[in-house]
């Protein structure tokens, strides 16, 4: 009995290892075979992996759909910009920053960690209120949270630059840095999902009443998972800023909310493998479509999809997956090795 339990624990740990191996192979292939623009696409994809796996820590384990995570992403992205931009630039573009931030000129790594911590702290406060709700009311409340963050960041002229973009971030987040963070996030997600809190939370996802009757404090575990989840979405935000070099509140609103939820749903909300595979599959499809929008030469004629067709096709793919495989492509199963014979 104890033996099988041990084997199960071990085989559960094979999931993140396999997923990280897939990410490493993906990055290597792109770097070796692709050009510069493909490498940039790989970095964007790995940032999305960090974000979506971070999102999964909350959504996958609790079963509550959150529309608010793009808000935590925005918080992380701007925090990293405040900490790392050169003081002269901040004086010019963000004149109302607090003196401590205005003079800060941190190294990028501690800045990313602190950005995640700030997002986690905001998640603790906002989650303490929002997670008292359940089901659809909680989802709508996360939407309200997103709208609050968006309104604040797109109106607070002297601190966030409002709707004019913040520019000049060091573009250090290439495919290797983002691969590192994506791997850490996958490990953390697997660790959380197999921890006592994660298991309790998943029990409550399956049956709230039964979990409640077994003495599980649902509110507490939901809050813990939201805080962990927000940390990684905050880091993803910081990486996002340092990959493009430009920040604008509009990058953290409905567009990113939709595309990340689409990735999670297409892959399968129920499993960590689903979250990672969803990002990889949809990112590759998006890249292919973007190239087709630019034009595809077959023989002498150039065929091009009209600009904007990419979003429509992604939406249709998502609807089809929901109709044909409501639990996503992985159907809630994990990729794992069977360690030791049965």
């Amino acid at each position, binding site marked *: 009995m104890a033996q099988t339990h041990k084997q199960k624990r071990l085989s559960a740990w094979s999931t993140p290892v396999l997923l990280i191996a897939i990410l490493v192979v993906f990055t290597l292939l792109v770097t070796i075979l692709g050009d510069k623009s493909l490498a940039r696409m790989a970095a964007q994809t790995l940032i999305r992996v960090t974000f979506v796996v971070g999102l999964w820590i909350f959504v996958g384990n609790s079963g509550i*759909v959150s529309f608010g995570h793009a808000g935590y992403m925005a918080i992380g992205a701007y925090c990293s910009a405040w900490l790392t931009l050169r003081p002269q630039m901040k004086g010019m573009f963000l004149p109302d920053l607090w003196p401590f931030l205005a003079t800060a000129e941190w190294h990028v790594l501690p800045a990313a960690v602190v950005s995640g911590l700030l997002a986690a702290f905001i998640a603790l406060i906002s989650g303490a209120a929002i997670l*008292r709700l359940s089901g659809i009311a909680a989802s709508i409340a996360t939407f309200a949270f997103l709208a609050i963050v968006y309104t604040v960041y797109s109106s607070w002229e002297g601190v966030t630059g409002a709707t004019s973009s913040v520019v000049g971030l060091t573009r250090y987040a290439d495919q290797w840095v983002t691969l590192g963070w994506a791997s850490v996030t996958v490990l953390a997600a697997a660790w959380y999902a197999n921890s006592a809190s994660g298991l309790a939370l998943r029990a409550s996802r399956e049956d709230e009443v039964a979990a409640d009757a077994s003495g599980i404090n649902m509110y507490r575990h939901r809050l813990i998972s939201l805080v962990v989840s927000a940390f990684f979405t905050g880091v993803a935000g910081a990486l996002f800023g340092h990959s493009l070099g430009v920040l604008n509140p509009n990058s953290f609103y409905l567009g990113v909310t939709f595309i990340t939820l689409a990735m999670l749903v297409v892959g399968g909300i129920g499993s960590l493998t689903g979250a990672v595979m969803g990002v990889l599959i949809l990112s590759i499809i998006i890249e292919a479509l973007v190239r087709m929008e630019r034009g595809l030469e077959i023989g002498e004629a150039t065929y091009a999809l009209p600009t*904007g067709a990419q979003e429509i096709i992604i*939406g*249709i793919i998502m*609807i089809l997956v*929901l109709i044909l495989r*409501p639990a996503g492509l992985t159907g809630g199963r994990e990729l794992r090795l069977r360690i030791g014979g049965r």
Partner: protein
Amino acid sequence: MNAIPQLLFDALSLGGIYAMAALGIALIFGVMKLVNFAHGEYIAFCVFALIVPSTDAVAVMFLGKAPAILLIPMLLLIGAVVAVASEFFVFRHVRNATPVAMMISSFALGFVIQNTLLLIYSSRPKAVSLWPELNQPVSIIGASIPLLQIIVIFTTLLVVVTLALLLKRTRIGLEMRAAAENFTMARLLGVRANVVITGAFALSGALAAAVALIMVTQTGVADIRMGGQIMLVAFIATVIGGLGSLPGAVAAGFLIGAASVILQGFLPLEARPFRDAFLYTLVIVSLLLRPDGLFAPRSTKPRV
């Protein structure tokens, strides 16, 4: 200064728009527990049906050229057709999925409609002049108020009364109320599910068209994003009102309209750009105090 009646009319007309949009969402939630995120895109679709497809900044009227007596029923019909079509092609197939999966599929559908509009009309907001004479002010009890505001208030009243009559006095209304109360039981007693659901979608789409007409006349622009903002508020109104409760949706729509006008009027000047942040904070507070909504119907409480 006659600030108070002015504010009152502003609040009533804004609340009226929100209430109509919220009704459209609550109707569908009532019959199939679907949180329809595509509702805002129905509104945008109806707005853009008024003008000729082009990417220019000034719009050329297409349907909008028709006289009002033809235009209004035509647009309501278009709204209804779009909504019914979306039910037929998408929501019918996910009817047995979890509410979360249904909600996300509506989100995806909204995304598809929005990007299709974007593809045809480009993202630039367009100037549209539909019935500009309605924006002329008239003075009532000392306040000068655009004629349109009064029309909006009366339209809302008319819509709410008609809908109430429809739901209370006709057979389809009775069936809809039965379906909202307990869908499985209603079907067992001979309510035709497809008829009821299609009917709810048609009504919801027509409501979206009405909102579209009002918004275009009021703002004079056609913008792809105009549906999203109002949909968010309408959602929040249906949740605050108690999901599935139609009177609750109307009341909460007016409440949010009033709160937003009051915040706009009384917030200190430097805090005004943050009005929506205050509004949504109030929303979260209200949800915390009454998680089931202010006017929750008994049927929404899950039984163990």
